[in-house]
């Protein structure tokens, strides 16, 4: 076994081992379940170690090196279909592995504190490790089927973790919703996979991308579209995005890991992996972009109206994912991956920060209950927060940094990645194919950037600035502010790590023209483009330096303007008063946003209710009368025969002997005939 095989086995195997150790021992031993330090250590080692290994691999893999494929064994060998359990180490998978294990590791660390008092501690970490295992299969699999295994695996873990507190019906419903919406996408994914296999007879990426000329243009269109539909499920895009906000029912560290940093970006990974195939079908590229742009602005407008801290972040995630798809469709694969990485940093940081806030708010609730004060409030509602910056300095600072990053203020991470996306949209707008549409999408992107900066600062200011509003709003809660406290180090340390990453993460993708302008010579300072060069089939950006500076300046001005307005309106933490102003200004639009464009109601009326009605009136009746009737008739007949034959078994020994003799005669007769 050579070194890379061994390392890949470790990367893949350690999280799986962690899952088995914590899962099996936790299941059978109640004393192990109580041993939380050990459980936490095992689960963390199972992710930190792969992270370090991935770093080692990363530094030993040059940008122009070809992919290393590690084949462990043949998984399926049926007819002409051969599928190996084979993992691929190349620039793209390494980047994703680093994000998954790196962000994953710090979220594991955070969970030690966050889940510390939960009785399902062992189960939580077992699921979390299993998720990492599945996600690594997704990003490292060398063929579509192994990717799909990971794809389904992360879906399963997402289901398990959203419904982690499954005794609450709403949470378990949210888990089911997530799973079912994903199944719709998976269905399309499967068909796409069949079509690929039908054409090239293999599911290996090398074979698929090496035989692109074998695909007819209709196939390229349909396969691309089907995989994209799969991606809209997993990556929460219109029309399948409605599960993601509900998925916030899970523990917050899950939201950070699965529903912000990693799993939801797997659709972007998939399309980037197949980018050479996607660029051959401009129609699909356009669809991807349009859906992405629509999702970005729809989710951003909804985020504006939400008061639940996690829901705002959830819609923000949907919106940012839309941004990434906008980039993909505009031929900015590297830009999309860049945004995946930076978004993983600041959104994980934001989610973990919100978890820290919720943790404290719940603590306040418990304390008040202990004092005998019956206070009923939602610990996730920003209208009860405010002024938390004094008691939670680390959480506040990291949250603010991540907010600046997502708002697109230079030189933080989000600025560079978002700018590159807009640049690509604009560049595609200058292109021949559907140029005006791409130009509109660029406008949508700019508008979304404005909204993003605005609602994120609204969230931050309402939560941390002004006065603590719980005692104001609820009389019984007087003195609640004394119970506010900063979270333990195991929670704030990951916050700081992610905040630092949000600050410096953007420099890996700093545009060359910026440096060129200042130094006056050709620069090659951008790390990401050369790194993904061999995989991402980017459209070239065709613009003069002046235009690029102009666009960049516009983006900064828009973001800064949004921040300034948000500061004016919410800087003092007056969330409800200022929301009223926004409502008055936007009128009927606000209503639509608040109602979330009625997507859920639409599905309810169009799909859920007709299906339920059909099942209830037709299928159930068919099942009861025809299917059950048939089964019962068969069963009844068989049982009747059984009860008739049992009378032969009289218990009288002489009759037994008689049957024996009959048997002898039968055998003799058959032998001698």
């Amino acid at each position: 076994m050579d070194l890379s095989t061994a390392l890949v086995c470790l990367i893949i195997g350690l999280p799986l081992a962690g899952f088995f150790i914590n899962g099996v021992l936790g299941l059978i031993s109640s004393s192990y379940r109580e041993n939380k330090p050990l459980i936490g250590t095992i689960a963390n080692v199972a992710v930190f170690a792969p992270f370090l290994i991935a770093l080692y691999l990363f530094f030993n893999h040059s940008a122009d090196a070809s992919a290393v494929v590690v084949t462990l064994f043949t998984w399926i060998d049926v007819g002409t279909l051969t599928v190996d359990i084979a993992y691929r180490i190349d620039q793209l998978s390494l980047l994703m592995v680093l994000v998954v294990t790196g962000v994953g590791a710090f979220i594991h660390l955070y969970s030690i504190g966050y889940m510390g008092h939960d009785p399902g501690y062992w189960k939580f970490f077992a699921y979390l490790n299993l998720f990492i295992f599945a996600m690594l299969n997704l990003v490292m699999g060398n063929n579509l089927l192994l990717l799909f295994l990971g794809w389904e695996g992360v879906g399963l873990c997402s289901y398990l973790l959203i419904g982690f507190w499954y005794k609450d019906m709403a949470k378990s419903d949210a888990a089911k919703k997530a799973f079912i919406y994903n199944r719709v996408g998976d269905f399309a994914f499967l068909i796409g996979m069949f079509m690929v296999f039908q054409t090239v007879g293999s599911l290996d990426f090398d074979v698929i991308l090496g035989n692109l000329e074998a695909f007819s243009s209709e196939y390229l269109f349909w396969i691309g579209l089907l995989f994209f539909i799969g991606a809209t499920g997993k990556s929460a895009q219109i029309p399948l995005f409605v599960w993601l906000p509900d998925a916030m029912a899970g523990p917050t560290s899950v939201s950070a890991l699965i529903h912000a940093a990693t799993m939801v970006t797997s659709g972007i990974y998939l399309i980037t992996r197949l980018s050479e195939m996607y660029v051959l079908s401009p129609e699909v590229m356009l669809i991807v972009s349009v859906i992405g742009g629509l999702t970005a602005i729809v989710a951003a407008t909804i985020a504006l109206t939400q008061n639940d801290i996690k829901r705002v972040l959830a819609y923000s995630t949907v919106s940012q994912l839309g941004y990434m798809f906008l980039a993909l469709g505009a031929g900015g694969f590297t830009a999309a991956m860049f945004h995946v990485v930076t978004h993983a940093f600041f959104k994980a940081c934001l989610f973990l920060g919100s978890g820290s806030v919720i943790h404290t708010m719940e603590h306040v609730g418990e304390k008040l209950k202990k004092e005998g004060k019956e206070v009923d409030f939602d610990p996730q509602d920003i209208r009860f927060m405010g002024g938390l910056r004094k008691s939670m300095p680390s959480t506040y600072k990291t949250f603010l940094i991540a907010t600046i990053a997502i708002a697109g203020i230079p030189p933080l991470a989000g600025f560079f990645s978002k700018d590159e996306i807009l640049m690509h949209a604009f560049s595609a707008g200058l292109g021949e194919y559907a140029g005006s549409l791409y130009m509109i999408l660029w406008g949508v992107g700019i508008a979304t950037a404005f909204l993003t900066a605005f609602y994120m600062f609204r969230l931050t200011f309402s939560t941390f600035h002004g006065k603590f509003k719980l005692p104001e709003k609820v009389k019984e809660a007087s003195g609640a502010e004394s119970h506010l406290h900063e979270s333990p180090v195991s929670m704030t340390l990951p916050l700081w790590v992610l905040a630092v990453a949000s600050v410096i993460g953007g420099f890996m993708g700093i545009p060359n023209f910026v440096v060129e302008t200042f130094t006056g010579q050709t620069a090659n300072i951008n790390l990401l483009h050369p790194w993904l060069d061999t995989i991402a089939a980017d459209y070239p950006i065709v613009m003069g330096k002046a235009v690029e500076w102009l666009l960049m300046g516009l983006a900064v001005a828009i973001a800064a303007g949004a921040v300034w307005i948000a500061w004016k309106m919410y800087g003092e933490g007056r969330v409800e008063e200022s929301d009223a102003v926004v409502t008055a200004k936007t009128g009927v639009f606000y209503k639509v946003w608040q109602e979330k464009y009625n997507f859920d109601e639409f599905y309810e009326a169009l799909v859920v209710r007709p299906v339920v009605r059909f099942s209830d009136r037709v299928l159930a009746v068919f099942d009861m009368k025809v299917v059950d009737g048939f089964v019962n008739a068969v069963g009844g007949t068989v049982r009747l025969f059984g009860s008739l034959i049992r009378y032969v078994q009289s218990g009288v020994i002489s009759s037994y002997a008689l049957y024996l003799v009959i048997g002898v005669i039968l055998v003799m007769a058959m032998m001698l005939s």
Partner: protein
Amino acid sequence: MDYLYDLNTFLPATIMAAAGLVAILMAAYKARIGNIFNFTIVALVMALAVSIRDLFGPDGTAFFDMIAYGGTAAFGAFLVTLGTLFCVVISRDYLEAIDHHYREVYAMILFGSTGMVGLAVSNDLIMLFLGVETMSICLYVLAGLIKGEKIGAESALKYVLLGAFSTGFLLYGIALIYGATGATSYAVVAGAAEATPLFLAGTALLLVGFFFKISAVPFHMWTPDVYQGTPTTLTAYFATASKAASFIALVLVLSRMIPEIEGVELTQLLQVIAILTMIVGNLIALVQDNVKRMLAYSSIAHAGYILVGLAAGTPEGYTGVLYYLFAYTIMNIGAFGVIAYYERNHALDFTDVHNYAGLGYKFPVMGVLLSVFLFSLIGIPPFVGFLGKYYVFAAAVNAGLVTLAVIGVLASAASVFYYLRVMVYLYFREPHKEYQLVRPGALFKYSLILLGILTLWYGIEPIFPTDSLIELISTYY
């Protein structure tokens, strides 16, 4: 020195016979029963180790062609020893709990298993008869273990009377074959025989003897009554070890004695018996409320599935039969073991399926294990029972017996009902009253868990790129 070599080929039985003698002496001198138990376990573990060695050893005949060793015979010795060991392990706590823990039990089991190994390795009709009788007499004693109660006496008496009756046929068959060929050794008989009515009648009667021992329909009538009246762990012993021995002996007779002879066609007969056995066994099992009786009929049905492999009459079929016997041994002992565990509780009558209501949630390990064994008995992947069924049915299809295989599959589909019924009670019914279960002993619990793991492991083993059990068995043919 030849004798020593021969003895070496017969070592598992030799160990058990010697251990049986020591055990009966220990019993005579009133040794503590725990010591007898421990001694028996040690002896059986040794015998098992030797029999595993023999699985990979050479094959041939010994003791003047009286016995065969290696190959199928070695597999028979292995199965008998394996089944005996597990049955003994689970017997102690159970017999203790039902107050029928006698010193002689272990000696009788050891002697019985000696006879079974002798039967399973026989290469001569005389040896076959010796084996059958040594086995049967011990089983008669064990069937009447519940002394002083009507059910035990009934069980033993029925078994003795019908057993003697059937042995008569067996012996008569041997006599006729000897009359027709002047020989008792399989190879010599095969060389000398012609399809005369005398020989055919002898073969028919010999087969009747076998059909009785493997409880094929219509020679099965004793089975439910005896199984019900025997202590449960010993029922497991009856249903697995003794059946495995009889089947292996039948395989040897069919594969070594019959096929050379012109004009003797057994496929038709075996098919009819197999169909009858599968249908009747499953049908009556459907209407049983007593779990032990249900398992008795289920064991009849399983004998039917195994007969399907025999009817195929190909090397593939025999391979399937051997594998099925292995599967059947581990999953059936497991199922009986869990029932024995429940029976140790006197709170309710745990042979009645109605009293299994909600039982799965008390000591979940046991509920899960019982479910695993029942799923495997149904033949649901990924458990070993599925592979057993697959191999025998596939062999039948490849041998052109498609109708037979279809009937077999339908019959096993019907069996889903009565196995699942137990699980429905285990998990989906509310218990009628509150009661506590005793804790299973460590040895008892872990041996059942081991059986559960084996049931799962051998169900998924062929997917691993290692040498699998089925490959080992297929080298015997």
